[in-house]
Structure formats: structure tokens, C-alpha cells
């Protein structure tokens, strides 16, 4: 009987384990890489060997050799950020779950020997979780969905990192540009402040006017210090995201934001694109599928939650008689007398409904986020291009005309300074507006692909425009 039983178990196992998963050579990374490269066109690497680490290091080194573009910064982060590697480790762990779940339950062998009074009884049991075996295809499929989800999560972590790097990059570059602008402004302010002192000495400028001319220098100095600090912090954050330390910290960033694209993207189908591509949405969808499968499983096992089948071979030795063997089997059922399994079915159904509603909600939100991100993208483009095409050229005209008026002795030298202050405010507003545009562009990408995290509109005002700057862009 034991033999038959064991054989039967093996056959059953062999039969049912046809969907059994083995460890993949890349721990499921190829899917992640495919997903992310479709969205952001970057390489990802799961570093597990010394060779791999060496290759990554070489690549990062090569990318760092040149002034970083936003794309190379993203690429470095994807290769070098250890947090991302940890996310990939989680994926590898999920694969171990998958493999585990797709194996048949191990049979349990039990030997018990009872002696007493000269008599002994040896009982050997082969116990198999029949139910676990019976539900193996279900469970393996569920585990596969979970693994798929884990892959998506890894992809999401990748995209999120990419988006964070983009934002960090634009902030750092804008910080550089602001520092350069204010450094120039400070030099100008300094020489005119010195002139004001000299004019005080010649008797041409009273104390009140001297103070008025010098306050610009003082304010600009303070603004420059603030801008330097913000630029340093932005750069540090970018370094963190790129996983750089020590030798890698001397990476080079451009001194100024690039000009705006000639025209903004027109994305009429952005909502559908977002619904189709958003990885968080795909995860939620897979969750629902997994839940649906889990519900079927629950339905199938609602009356029998645990079925233990035990083959028993018992040998009893009595000191007063010859030993004898007994064979049989032992089946244990847990009969759901009290709840009839209804509770668990209800739980499963509600869980499914909950997930369904969450998915729907998320889809609605994704559409709205996509629309919003696109609107922010467009309006920030319009504002930045208004600065670039209207305000800055007008300021240039004003500057040139003021210079003509100065050189033909129509206006005082300090009228030029007043004008320079206003121009500075406009230039700061323009940098700010351009930074907002590039942040909005990064957010637009995440609105379609996922990985956003921070809603676009919450990007904080990166610079404190001086009170003298009425046209500094204001709020959002």
C-alpha cells in the first residue's frame, strides 16, 4: 500500500508539475529592461558578479568623463544607484517565491516507534498535502502573476529613479545658471557701489542716495549666497541619485539650462497612452488578475480547506506474540461546519471588488494626471517661451536704449543700475520659468510611463526672487 501510495503521489506530482518554474538566468530582469527601455530608452543592469560590476563601473566612468546631459545623468543613476539594485534584489527574491510556489508540496515521512512493557510499535507514515498538490497549477499561476508584478515594480522603481534624476538634474543646472547670473550681477553691483562711495567723496552723492545705490550690492550678495547654497544642495541630491561618492563627485554639469524646444509636444492621445503605459496601472491590473485567480482557488477549496492524506504502515511487535504489520491510511478533513467557507468566499469577493475599484480609481486618476501634466507642460512652455521670446528681448531693447541714453548724456549712470535691477529680475524669472518647463517635461514623462510619485504641481519655487522682481513668475 505504501508503495502504491508513494508511487501514486509521484505520478500525481509529475503530472501536475508540468507548469513548474525554474530560476531564470537573469532573475526576470530582461522584462524590466524591456519595459524601461521602451519608456526611457536606457540600459539597466542588475549587478551580481564582479565582471558585471566592472563593466558598470567602466560605463559610469566613461559617462562621467563628459559634461553630463540629462540623459547621461539618468543612465549613470540607473547603473549606479544602489537603491535600484536593492529593488532588483527584491525582484530576484520574488522569483524564488515563484519557483517555490510552482513546486509540488514535499511529502512528509513520519516514523513513530512506541515501546512499552516489552512491546514496541513502529509506525511509518508518508503524508502528502493532497490539496496543495491539487491546487498546484493555480498557485503556480498566481505566483507567476506575483512575479510579473514584481517585475513591474522593479520597472517602476527604475522609472521613478529616472524621473527623480531628471528633476534633480534640472534643478542643479538651473541652480548653476542662477549662480552665474547672480555672480555677474554682484560684480556689476559691486563696481557701482564703489562708484557711489567715490561720488560720496567728491560730494556728488548724499548719504541717502549712497545707501540707495549700495543696497543693491548688499541684496545681490545675499541672493548670491542663497543661490549658491541651493545649487550645492541640488547638486548633492543629484549625486545621491546617481549613487556617486568620493571620486565621482567632481562630475560636470552645464552652466545653463538649454533653450526651449522650438515647439511643445502635441499629445492628443495622452490619456489613452497613459492608461496603456502606466506601470503602476499595469501592476494594479495584474493584482486584479491574481486576485481573480485567488478567488477561483477559494471557490474550489471552500469546503475543504485542508486535506491531509496519510498512508500508514504500522508494525506492532508484541513480546508475547509474533510481531504483525498493519497497513491503512488516514485522511483528515477539516469540515467547515460553522461558517461553511462563506466567510472566506466573502472575503475573497470583497477583496476582489476592492481591487477592482482601486484599479478603476487609479485609471481615472491616471487620465486626470496625464491631462494635468500635459496642461502644466504646455503652460510652463508658454510662460518660459514668453520670457524667452517677449520679455528678455524687450529687456534687451530697454538695456540698449538706456545705454544710448546714458552715452548721449540723457540719463544718469544710476538710472542704468535701476534698469539693470529690473533686467536681473526678468532674467531670474526666465531661468525659473525654463526650469519649471523642464521639470514639467520630466513630470509629463512620468504621467505617461509612471514613476511620478510627486505630483507635478507641487514642485516648489526654487528661487526666492527679490522683492524688486515683480515679473518673477509668481506662483504656479
Amino acid at each position, binding site marked *: 500500500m505504501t508503495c502504491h501510495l508513494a508511487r501514486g503521489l509521484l505520478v500525481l506530482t509529475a503530472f501536475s508539475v508540468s507548469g513548474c518554474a525554474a530560476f531564470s538566468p537573469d532573475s526576470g530582469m530582461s522584462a524590466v529592461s524591456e519595459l524601461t527601455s521602451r519608456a526611457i530608452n536606457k540600459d539597466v543592469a542588475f549587478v551580481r558578479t564582479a565582471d558585471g560590476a566592472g563593466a558598470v563601473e567602466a560605463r559610469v566612468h566613461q559617462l562621467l568623463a563628459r559634461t553630463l546631459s540629462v540623459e547621461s545623468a539618468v543612465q549613470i543613476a540607473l547603473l549606479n544607484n544602489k537603491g535600484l539594485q536593492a529593488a532588483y534584489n527584491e525582484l530576484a527574491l520574488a522569483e524564488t517565491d515563484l519557483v517555490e510556489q510552482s513546486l509540488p508540496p514535499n511529502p512528509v515521512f513520519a516514523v513513530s516507534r512506541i515501546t512499552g512493557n516489552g512491546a514496541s510499535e513502529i509506525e511509518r507514515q508518508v503524508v502528502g498535502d493532497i490539496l496543495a498538490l491539487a491546487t498546484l497549477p493555480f498557485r503556480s499561476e498566481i505566483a507567476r502573476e506575483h512575479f510579473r508584478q514584481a517585475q513591474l515594480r522593479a520597472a517602476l522603481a527604475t522609472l521613478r529613479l529616472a524621473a527623480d534624476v531628471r528633476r534633480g538634474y534640472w534643478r542643479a543646472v538651473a541652480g548653476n545658471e542662477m549662480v552665474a547670473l547672480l555672480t555677474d550681477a554682484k560684480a556689476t553691483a559691486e563696481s557701482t557701489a564703489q562708484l557711489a562711495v567715490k*561720488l560720496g567723496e567728491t560730494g556728488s552723492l548724499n548719504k541717502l542716495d549712497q545707501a540707495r545705490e549700495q543696497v543693491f550690492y548688499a541684496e545681490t550678495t545675499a541672493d548670491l549666497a542663497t543661490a549658491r547654497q541651493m545649487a550645492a544642495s541640488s547638486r548633492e541630491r543629484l549625486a545621491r541619485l546617481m549613487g556617486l561618492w568620493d571620486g565621482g563627485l567632481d562630475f560636470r554639469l552645464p552652466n545653463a539650462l538649454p533653450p526651449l524646444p522650438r515647439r511643445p509636444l502635441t499629445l492628443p492621445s495622452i490619456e489613452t497612452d497613459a492608461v496603456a503605459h502606466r506601470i503602476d496601472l499595469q501592476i494594479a491590473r495584474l493584482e486584479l488578475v491574481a486576485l481573480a485567480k485567488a478567488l477561483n482557488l477559494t471557490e474550489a477549496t471552500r469546503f475543504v480547506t485542508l486535506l491531509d492524506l496519510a498512508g500508514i504502515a504500522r508494525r506492532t511487535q508484541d513480546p508475547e506474540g509474533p510481531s504483525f504489520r498493519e497497513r491503512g491510511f488516514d485522511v483528515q478533513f477539516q469540515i467547515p461546519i460553522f461558517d461553511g467557507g462563506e466567510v472566506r468566499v466573502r472575503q475573497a469577493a470583497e477583496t476582489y471588488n476592492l481591487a477592482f475599484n482601486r484599479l478603476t480609481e487609479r485609471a481615472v486618476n491616471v487620465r486626470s494626471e496625464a491631462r494635468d501634466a500635459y496642461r502644466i507642460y504646455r503652460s510652463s512652455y508658454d510662460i518660459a517661451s514668453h520670457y524667452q521670446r517677449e520679455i528678455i528681448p524687450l529687456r534687451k531693447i530697454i538695456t540698449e536704449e538706456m545705454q544710448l541714453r546714458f*552715452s548721449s548724456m540723457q540719463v544718469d549712470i544710476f538710472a542704468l543700475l535701476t534698469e539693470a535691477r529690473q533686467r536681473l529680475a526678468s532674467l531670474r524669472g526666465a531661468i525659473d520659468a525654463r526650469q519649471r518647463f523642464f521639470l514639467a517635461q520630466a513630470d509629463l514623462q512620468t504621467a505617461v510611463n509612471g514613476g511620478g510619485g510627486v505630483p507635478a504641481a507641487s514642485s516648489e519655487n526654487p528661487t526666492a526672487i527679490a522683492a524688486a522682481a515683480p515679473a518673477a513668475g509668481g506662483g504656479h
Partner: protein
Amino acid sequence: MFSRRRFLGTAALVGASAVQGRVQAASIPEAPHMDKVVMQPPLHPISGPDYRPVVTLNGWSLPFRMNGDWKEFHLVAEPVVREFAEGMKVNLWGYNGQSPGPTIEAVEGDKLRIFVTNRLPEYTSVHWHGMIIPSGMDGVGGLTQPHIQPGKTFVYEFEMKKSGTFMYHPHSDEMVQMAMGMMGMVVVHPRDPSFRPVDRDFVFVMSTYRVDPGTYLPHVNEMTDFNMWTWNARVFPGIDPLPVRLGDKVRVRIGNLSMTNHPIHLHGHSFAVTCTDGGWIPESAQYPETTTDVPVGAVRVFDVLADNPGDWAFHCHKSHHTMNAMGHDVRNLIGVSRKDLAKAVGKLAPDGMAMGSTGMAMGNMEMPTPDNTLPMMTGTGQFGPIEMGGMFTVMKIREDLARDDYRDPGPYKFPQGTVAYEVAAPAPEPARQKSGSPPMKHKM
């Protein structure tokens, strides 16, 4: 040089202007039009009593026709573009193509019929400043006549009771119309040619404008802060020189329709004021001057014997009236080194030059200016920059000039040894009186 016939044939007169209104067109003389801003040769009369005509500085005299015993003129009040000097044009209102309008010349006892056609966007009138005429011809809109509405032509008729120098200007919306340049001179010659005759007779009217740098239209509401100080709506170096033959007796007739007085100064000579808009000053009342103040709303005429050859500055003596547009809120930078200024300015205005650290003299530097804006100080002479603007020109007295030649004879050829010169070594500083106080100790 210029015969009467040749003058009439020049291109200076371009076409006749049609006249609108109820007056029969045939009865209205043509309205000559001037498109030049340089001084036109004198207009010798071809009919009526003879006289020695005047020359209008950067201007012209209005041709007339005799109609019976009436001398008929036609003024057209219209918007014009007047060039103040090369590089600056101003949209003004004027007469017959220019502002100021042409000089009207007549002879004592003439009967004048002056047609006035209004091509302005608002009504106007013409007041004959200083002339003794019937009240109904005095041209005060609302008081002595209806205003001349746009498109209408009025006619003024009066007899020239006395000779002298007079002006004409509107008495309708007067402040605006005069601020827009509507004015002109009237010269009435004595019937007796032997009455105080001269060889050359110049005439101009002074007016002021506020034209902000880069603009083309004067501020008509400005009362005091003008920046264009003009003689016949021209500023130096746009004002023609006064060419004079050595030994000529020269008369200069100056009207003032600006809002301030102008002390007019001629170098190298003394002169006598011989006439005002009130009439001839008896010789017994004349006294020698080198500067005569021309009050607001008045005419001063001086006669001078040009007996001292050379290039003689002739200008208003209010020094800012010999400047073109200047900023009045410009700080005094004297005492600050040019280097310091350049450092401060270089960053603010890379093309601007740091000036004014020793004074305002700009030497030969050509300063870039806003559109339609003249340099504040300008003009070049044979020894370098003249650094003048506004009410400044030169009386050029030459021996070799023909009687009626009004061409610019060019720079004066100074006889050897008659020009101020640099000495090789400056004289040692004269000993100054020592103060009685003990020498001061330097405190560290």
C-alpha cells in the same frame, strides 16, 4: 548770383496747392511749397514797389502776386516734418511745407490780401503780431473772427501802415499750435529805400521744443523744461552760417516766440538795436551792445557794421540754450577717475562711455544716441570739436564775398600769427600770498 528769374525757376517751389472752400479757386493765388531746410536766396520783387529783400535763416520768403493794387499771398497751415539738424526730424505743424512758415515781405503802404487755408486737424487763425491793422483782421479766434475750421480758407486784408519787423502765429488753441511750431516772420520794408538801408538783412524766429530722445513729436504741454532751442526750428550744427561781405552793413531781425528770453550775443563787434516789433528806434536812443536780450513775444533788430573779418560765434548766451537734448538729472561725475567710471559703466553699458569725470567735454568722441536724437554737443570747426548745439551759429565775414552771395565761404583763413597759440613752457606759477597761519601738521 541769383537772378530773380532764376530763383523763381528753382525747384524750391514745388507745385501749387489746391484750395478747398467756398472761395472761388480762380481768385486764390497758388500756395507755394518748400521742401528744403537750407537758407534760400533772397526773393527780389518782380512786381510792386522795389525793396532790398531779406534772407530767412534756413528758410524762405513767400512769393506773392499782384492783383490790382493788392499784394496777394497764400498761407497753408498744415502738418510738416521739419529737420532740426541732420539726424533729427520732428513732426510739427507749420505753413507751406515748413515750420516756421515762409517770411512774408511787403512794403510800407502795401495793401495785403493773405489767404489762409487750414489743413490742420483742428481750427486755427492767424494773428499778425505787432502790425497796426483793423481789429477784425487781428486773427484772435472767437474775439475778432470765427476760427478757421479744418478745410476752410479765410482771407485777411489790411494795409501795411508802417515798416518794421513783425511776426505771425495762430491765436486759436494758441499754446498747442505754437508749441507745434506754427509761426513766421513779416518784414515790411520802408517805402523810402534810403531809410536806414543795409547790405544784408537776415531774419529768424526763435522757438523751443521738448522732444524726448527717440521721439518725433514735441510735448505741447511743456512750459519750462525744453531741450530743443531753435532758430527757425533748426539747431546747431543745422543752422546755416551768416555769410557777410567785409564792410557790409548787416541787419539781423530776431523774433522770439519761445517761452523764455534769449540774450543774443555776437562776437567781434558791437551793434545797436535799431528796431523792435513796435517800430524803428530813433538813432538818438540807440546804444552799443554786444548782447541784446530778446524778450518773450518780441522782436529785436540790430544793425552791425561787419568790419572785422573772421568766423564770429553768434548765439544765445544762456549756456544750456547752446546744447541739444540733455538729461537734467545727470549726476556730476567730476572728480571720479575715468577708470572707476569705466569699471562701473562697462558692466552696465558696455557700449556706453564713461564721461563727465573731468567735465562734459567729449572731444571727438562720436556718441551713439537713441533714434532721432542729436548729440548734446556737436559741430566741428577747423581746430576741432565746437561742442555746441541749439541756438548757435557763425557769422562769417569775408573780404572776397560778392554782394549778393550767400554761399557758405568755408572756414576762415586766419592771417599768420593771429591765432592763440601754445607756448613752449608755461610760465612759473606766480608767487601767492602766504597765509599768516603756521604750517599745518599732518595728523596721522
